[in-house]
């Protein structure tokens, strides 16, 4: 009753967007699709919401086949596209009423489902949707996607362009919705949000790198990882890239994340190398891998 994908492939004019994707989302699961822009996340959503037809493979949502039973799927899923897609010239309340009506229901009927979210935008219910802030727009869009009590909810990058506080609130809302037995497939380019999902699929260039719980994905990181800092970040990354024992080095917040090639690597070796290259304020510390580190590692391996 969740989502099942078997060997889904899709190309646009011979450019592959999805390549042999298979996974399952269990009923009531909060499943994250994590990957950079252009990874194929939106194409995947559009196939599952019956907006696009896959070239190969088959998929089922809430027990319905995406091709043959597309009408049933359209009755039972909620979809929030990546771009804000509500009527900007309609007020908050009018938008919500409209989506309730076209799904043959009313706001009152399913109010308990959206109550937590709607309460926050209710003071602005007479404001046109186009005049809302980014976070409010997302809340309204979520309300509209939920108003018909869908079995499966598709959220395509719901937090892109939303401030950190609203993002946090948004994920708390998703967690609460999950309690109400709604299967949720959510995509995001933000790796920190991945840790809030039950399971995640790392996706890049139309291929799935790994599917697991966030904890297992982090635990699977095969190497030691160090965070490195110096007063000249630009020079630091140049120097790390020519350092003979470098496996990978990429910026991560105010640090660089560094993984060594050899098992025998010691942080002191690196500090010494950097001192020779006239770096100041050098800091090399072992750290815990994150989803992003895993992602970088896996996509490097794929190349």
């Amino acid at each position, binding site marked *: 009753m969740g989502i099942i994908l078997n060997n889904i492939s899709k190309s646009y004019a011979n450019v592959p967007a999805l390549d042999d994707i298979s996974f399952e989302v269990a009923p009531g699961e909060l499943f994250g699709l994590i990957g950079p822009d252009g990874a194929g996340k939106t194409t995947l959503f559009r196939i599952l919401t019956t907006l696009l*037809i896959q070239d190969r493979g088959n998929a089922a949502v809430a027990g319905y086949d995406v091709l043959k039973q597309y009408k049933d799927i359209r009755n039972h899923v909620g979809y929030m596209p990546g771009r804000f897609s509500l009527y900007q010239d309609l007020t908050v309340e009018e938008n919500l009423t409209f989506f309730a009506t076209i799904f043959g229901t009313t706001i009152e009927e399913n109010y308990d489902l959206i109550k937590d979210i709607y309460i926050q935008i209710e003071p602005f219910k007479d404001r046109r949707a186009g005049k809302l802030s980014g976070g409010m727009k997302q809340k309204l869009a979520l309300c509209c996607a939920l108003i018909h009590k869908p079995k499966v909810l598709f959220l395509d990058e719901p937090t892109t362009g939303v401030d950190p506080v609203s993002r946090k609130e948004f994920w708390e809302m998703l967690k609460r919705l999950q309690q109400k037995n709604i299967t949720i497939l959510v995509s995001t380019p933000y790796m920190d949000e991945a840790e809030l999902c039950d399971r995640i699929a790392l996706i890049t260039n139309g291929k799935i790198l790994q599917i697991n719980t966030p904890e297992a994905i982090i635990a699977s990181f095969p190497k030691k990882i160090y965070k490195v800092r110096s007063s000249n970040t630009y020079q630091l990354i140049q120097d790390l890239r020519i350092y003979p024992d470098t496996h990978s080095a990429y910026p991560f917040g105010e640090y660089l994340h560094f993984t060594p090639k050899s098992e025998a690597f010691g942080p002191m070796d690196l500090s010494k190398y950097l001192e020779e290259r006239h770096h100041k304020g050098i800091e090399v510390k072992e750290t815990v891998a994150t989803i992003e580190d895993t992602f970088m590692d896996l996509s490097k391996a794929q190349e």
Partner: protein
Amino acid sequence: MNRFIGFIKKEFYHILRDRRSLFILFGMPIVQVMLFGFAITNEINNVDIAILDHSKDVNTKEIINKIATSKYFSIKGFIDHEDEIESTFKKGKIKAVLNFEKDFSKNLVTQKKATVQIVTDATDPNTANTISNYVGSILKNYQQELNQGLNLPYQIVPQTRMVFNPELKSVYMFVPGVMTIILMLVSAMMTSISITKEKELGTMEILLVSPLNPIQVIVGKVVPYILLSIINAAVIILLSIFVFKMPVQGSLFLLGAESTLFIVNALSLGILISTISSTQQTAMMISLMGLMLPVILLSGFIFPISSMPLPLQLISNIIPAKWFIMILKGIMLKGVGLAYVWKETLILIGMTIFFIVLSVKKYKIRLE
């Protein structure tokens, strides 16, 4: 059914909140009819006329004087023979010739009746018409002056003759034409834009992932515009009747029914356009180039179809506006009933069904 009504409600919100479109919807018809109407029935001033006086007596001199002193006319020449009338007109300056019959005063006294012919250049039929009216009223004035205190009144009979366009073919013709253009523009362009707008803003994506079926979406888009266009058609007809005194000879009910048919026809064309264009701008360009130009050029509104080269005459047959203008002219100007326009009506119905079927078939239930 609730879904459908909800959808229509939403469409009305869109229309009523978009001030610019609303202005186009209701402002344009009024402005256009007024422009066309007043540009054509404007007053005349200092129109050049010539005199052909066969009698040269007291009365004709007095009349010529009266005309010369009125601000409407200025006499720009005297001719001696009927043969010269046409060549005078061809020079282009002179718009009318007053032709006094032989023995004008004598006839007036002996027969109590004399005739003056007003020959007008009817290439511009409205000016021609206005000129004869003005000359007629000057003659009437003079006649009243003569008749003061007389038992047996004199009668001066003006005879109007039009040269070049004796049937006054384009007077009032602008009303059917303008009405057709406006209904076409409002109905086809507005619907095609409103549907492509949903595509452009991404709301179509959500509408597709909903239980609404294509027919509900299409009909829901169209119903508000049918209502608005009917209001528009009524405004145009009322303006023509009350502001421009256009006589509507035929049945108003039939006129309304045929207009509604044409509106539905234009709307289905609009839907068809929206299925092949993905942005509002393309939809607008296609509507303007693909619909407006043929309507203006090939429908017989401005250029008579009978004087077109054969290939264009054949093409004009596939333009719905041509048939609608024929129907309108029939009902409004000739006062005919359905019995005379059933053929045109059937053609319009056929075209409408064709467009609707095609658009429902072309309507995409997915994104590609």
